[in-house]
């Protein structure tokens, strides 16, 4: 467990202290008393069900929502300052971009580098060089001149990662990066993140509801379901923990079941590059997560 309430340290790329957030008119807060710190160069996986507050956490980190309680620091700055300085790279869950736009891949990757450039200035050669370098790092150099609408799903994702790393951010945020990607693609993706971390020294935060994405190569894992639960490694995710985190998802599929966590499921998480998970109910059927774990029995620490 590594949550931090101590004063900000210089090697903390991202730090949350007592952050709560509620959307106007909502019955319950989206986030409640979130405190954690991510060290420079670390890779954190945040696992959580849909509606667990993952998007809210990302928006707060990007400074796109106003803080209501607590403090968020990105490289010692406010999220907005960090975003303005290009310290945060972001890879969206879905590419909502208008892919019919008549732009080349290189133009798209250059966009974050020039969006706030003075209007009278030409695009500097340095920006183009950085864009090409980012494309090279994700193995997409040969796509530079292609129209953005002419890419496959996997190519588009690599281009979106290149766009995120082109400004050389200190923190890279990835939102559900492996949705719709097959197992082989997920493995390549995990390798790509590892290589980016080695080459750029960038701190990586991956947010997902898919345990395979989180388990593959993350140093630490946090489970987010309105509150945050920390684990030192993906192997610390017990069936009981998963049962509690995904309780609402499970209830939607199986009804509101209350079964003892040990009897209900056996769950194995492999944190290696061939990460996968098997969760079987006591009848031997494969399921997405362990149902019905009693929260009171959950042995993890609450943030």
């Amino acid at each position, binding site marked *: 467990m590594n949550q931090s309430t101590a004063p900000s340290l210089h090697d903390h790329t991202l730090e949350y202290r007592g952050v709560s957030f509620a959307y106007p008119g909502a019955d319950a807060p989206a986030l409640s008393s979130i405190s954690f710190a991510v060290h420079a160069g670390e890779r954190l996986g945040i696992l959580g069900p849909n509606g667990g507050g993952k998007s809210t956490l990302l928006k707060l980190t990007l400074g796109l929502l106003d803080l209501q309680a607590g403090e968020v620091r990105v490289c010692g700055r406010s999220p907005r300052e960090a*975003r303005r300085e*290009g310290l945060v790279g972001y890879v969206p869950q879905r590419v*909502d971009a208008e892919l*019919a736009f*008549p732009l080349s891949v290189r133009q*798209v990757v250059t966009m*974050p580098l020039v969006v706030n*450039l003075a209007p009278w200035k030409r695009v500097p050669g340095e920006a183009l060089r950085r864009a090409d370098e980012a494309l090279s790092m994700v193995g997409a150099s040969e796509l530079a001149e292609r129209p953005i609408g002419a890419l496959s799903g996997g190519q588009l994702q690599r281009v979106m990662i290149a766009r995120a790393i082109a400004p050389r951010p200190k923190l890279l945020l990835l939102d559900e990066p492996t949705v719709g990607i097959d197992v082989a693609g997920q493995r390549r993706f995990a390798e790509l993140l590892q290589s980016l971390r080695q080459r750029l020294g960038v701190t990586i935060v991956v947010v997902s509801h898919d345990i395979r994405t989180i388990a593959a190569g993350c140093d630490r894992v946090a489970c987010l379901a309105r509150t945050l639960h920390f684990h030192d490694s993906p192997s610390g995710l017990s069936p009981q923990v998963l049962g509690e985190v995904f309780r609402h998802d499970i209830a939607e599929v199986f009804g509101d079941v209350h079964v003892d966590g040990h009897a209900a499921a056996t769950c194995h998480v492999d944190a290696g590059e061939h990460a996968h998970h098997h969760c079987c109910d006591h009848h031997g059927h494969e399921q997405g997560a362990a149902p019905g774990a009693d929260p009171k029995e959950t042995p993890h620490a609450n943030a």
Partner: protein
Amino acid sequence: MRTLEYLGDPIMRGLFLPGIVTGVVIAIVCACLAVLVVLKRMSFIGQGVSHAAFGGMGVAAVLGLTGASLTAAQAVGQFSIILSFCLAAAMIVAWMSARRGTSADTAIGIVLVASMTLGAILMSVAFKRQGSQGPGWESVLFGAILSVGWADAIVAVIVSLAILVVLWWERRKLIFWAFDETSAPAFGAPPRSPRIVLMVLLCLSIVTAMKLAGVVLATAVLVLPGATALALSKKLARVIVISVGAALLSLVLGLVASMELDWPPGACIVGAMTLLYAFARLAGMARDSVGGAGAPA
């Protein structure tokens, strides 16, 4: 050729020239905006805003601010009234859409009809008062080149230059926002202002195009050149150049047809634009079938 006769005669040239100058600046401005309007699927909001202008024209008509012989102050006054209606319509649509139970689609439909109704009543009152001196329904709906005076042309040139300067100034933010509205703010692009800037520019260009192209056809100028260019190229700079070229060519063809056949200029210009769009689509389809899909210029 009636066109050559008209342009050779100093008196006739003096009557037509303000409309032609206005047409040229509108074609350039609208063609640039059209690329964004098509890519951001904003044609229907443009339609709503342009019909909202009908209400503004009704108010201007009641106040006597119609016709080609307006003074500069009257032309500015008329422009301001119509622009206020368009901006108010855009804001009401945005406000209604932000609330539960009303989609943007419904909001645009309601605002469009409400403003048309107001315009119809007010203009009917004004036209009865003016008798045969009034501009008439046809010119309000479909445009009339002779209804554009020098004061209108000067206002159109100044407004168009302003629109082009803002477009150039904001180009990087607008393009990033238009390409990826969801993610652009995460990269330091402003989250809301590009949409507001584009809506204000749209309102300004629609009001500028109104007299020449008419209420019904003004938005076509904000859609067809962009759609034509996007059917022909996948490179942004080239798309903008083709869009401006298509708009100017349609203007020339439309105005000549209008003078030769004595048809409404707005309808002729938009008709020419529609034909060019059809040709562009056919050319795009032919190119794809010859060179394979995904091999645009």
